[in-house]
């Protein structure tokens, strides 16, 4: 279990993190979301014991990161922002060094090194200096060093930044596979990633937690939750359709995208409008290309809470 209590970090000019409290249990994948500069990285750095909190405390499996840092770090695999490493070292030498510092020895060391090299597809670059690698490879080297000792806690700051879509998919699969027994905290500003891998999302804005929920629950906060989107096959029906939809009592608002002849009807709080709208479409003789119930948009929620 990792735990933060009232974590604060104040710099002379800015408050980076203010009163951040949360707990994460094994099996959870917590996604940290927030605009740039919201305090995601600072919070993760305090968890990893790199930044000293102004006040409050953080602990990893009961080990306080400030007073018992070595024990806390032993449980932790950490990918710092930007995946820094020693540029002049070769990938093999770097991973070897990390494995040694992590006290891996003999067959276990070989087994773990082979595992990360295979899973992160590093075999082709083992003899290359890290500074000559592409951004995607550097990120994967950073991930490899974070997981090589099979830690019970993973804190990964933007693990998929700089990866192409296939590599992103690979890394997400890897995180999902490892997640069962582990505590995983990732930060990202890619919202689809939260949907794809996280069991829980915390949104931070201006240093404070503004939402802490499952991704599914978060999407229900969207005004698009249970909205109905319809696309007409005949654009000339657009205006009539808009008026008819807006007249429905359960519809709060109607958005129109003329180019696609698409209308989106937003429900009043808690209302289900799909039935009404499909009945309306039949009675008005609207010719539909598509009729769809929306589950809510995370980016919409994100914008609303962090704006």
């Amino acid at each position, binding site marked *: 279990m990792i735990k933060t209590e009232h974590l604060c970090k104040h710099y002379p000019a800015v408050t980076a993190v203010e009163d951040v409290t949360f707990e994460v249990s094994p099996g959870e994948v917590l996604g940290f979301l927030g605009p740039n500069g919201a305090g995601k990285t600072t919070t993760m750095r305090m968890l990893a014991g790199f930044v000293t909190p102004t006040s409050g405390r953080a602990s990893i499996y009961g080990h306080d990161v400030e007073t018992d840092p070595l024990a806390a*770090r032993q449980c932790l695999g950490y990918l710092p922002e930007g995946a*820094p490493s020693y540029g002049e070292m070769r990938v093999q030498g770097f991973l070897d060094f990390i494995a040694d510092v992590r006290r891996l020895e003999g067959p276990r060391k070989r087994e773990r090194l082979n595992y990360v090299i295979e899973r992160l597809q590093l075999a082709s670059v083992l003899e290359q200096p890290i500074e000559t690698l592409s951004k995607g490879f550097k990120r994967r080297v950073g991930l490899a060093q974070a997981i090589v000792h099979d830690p019970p806690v993973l804190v990964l700051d933007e693990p998929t930044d700089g990866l192409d879509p296939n590599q992103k998919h690979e890394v997400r699969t890897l995180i999902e596979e490892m997640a069962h027994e582990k505590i995983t905290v990732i930060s990202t500003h890619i919202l689809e990633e939260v949907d794809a891998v996280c069991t829980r999302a915390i949104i931070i804005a201006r240093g404070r937690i503004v939402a802490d929920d499952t991704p599914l629950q978060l999407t229900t906060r969207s005004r698009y939750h249970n909205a109905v989107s319809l696309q007409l096959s005949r654009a000339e029906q657009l205006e009539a359709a808009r008026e008819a939809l807006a007249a429905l009592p359960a519809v709060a608002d109607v958005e129109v995208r003329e180019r696609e002849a698409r209308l989106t009807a937003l429900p009043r709080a808690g209302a289900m409008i799909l039935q009404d709208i499909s009945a309306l479409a039949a009675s008005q003789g609207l010719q539909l290309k598509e009729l769809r119930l929306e589950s809510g948009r995370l980016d919409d929620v994100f914008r609303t809470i962090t704006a």
Partner: protein
Amino acid sequence: MRNVALILRRELASYFATPLAYVFILIFLVLANAFAFYVGGFFQLGQADLRPFFMFHPWLYLFLIPALTMKLWAEERKSGSIELLMTLPVKVWEAVLGKYLAAWIFTGIALALTFPIWLTVNYLGSPDNGVIIASYLGSLLLAGGFLAIGSCMSALTRNQVVAFILGVAACFVLLLAGYPLVLDVFRGWAPQMLIEAVASLSLLTHFQSITRGVLEARDILYFAMLIGFFLFTTTVAIDLRKAD
């Protein structure tokens, strides 16, 4: 100690992974010998000793050692790798000591590669090899002192050029602490005791006393305390300002 050894090995390997090691060793050897022969008048003196060789080491080190140490911590800060290092299960002093010892061993390698001049002087005459060994030891200790100072200056900044300039300045002041250039700053207002205390910090005085062939406990102790003090300060500086 295992972590110290691991960090030492990694650092030492990284010297040789870049041109730094080769450039440093080459320049050191060329300058050390050039000074001995052209400025020190190694041949003209007609004496079979290495004094003209060792007498320039402080001045060579004054610029070469800060060039070596400026990257120790400043580069870690700049590249962000300090975040990686300081979140591994490694104590700060282990990292400080590992990096320092790597730099010292590296300087020791460069110094050891000056052995041809020792062979030469033995071929040409019969020098007092005891004095020469003491001088090598003195030179190594002096380098160790400069390295500790440089490590501390590098820990204070993320800018390598600043680290270099601070390093040269701090080394220069401590080198000449026993000479008017530094002491005149204190004369006139400071009590005699303080002036004497400052004078006793002079690296050059202690270095010269060793290179005369007199290995005294107080000189060794001086270097040990100097190195200890600056490494301790480095540790505190890194620990307090890891993320800045």
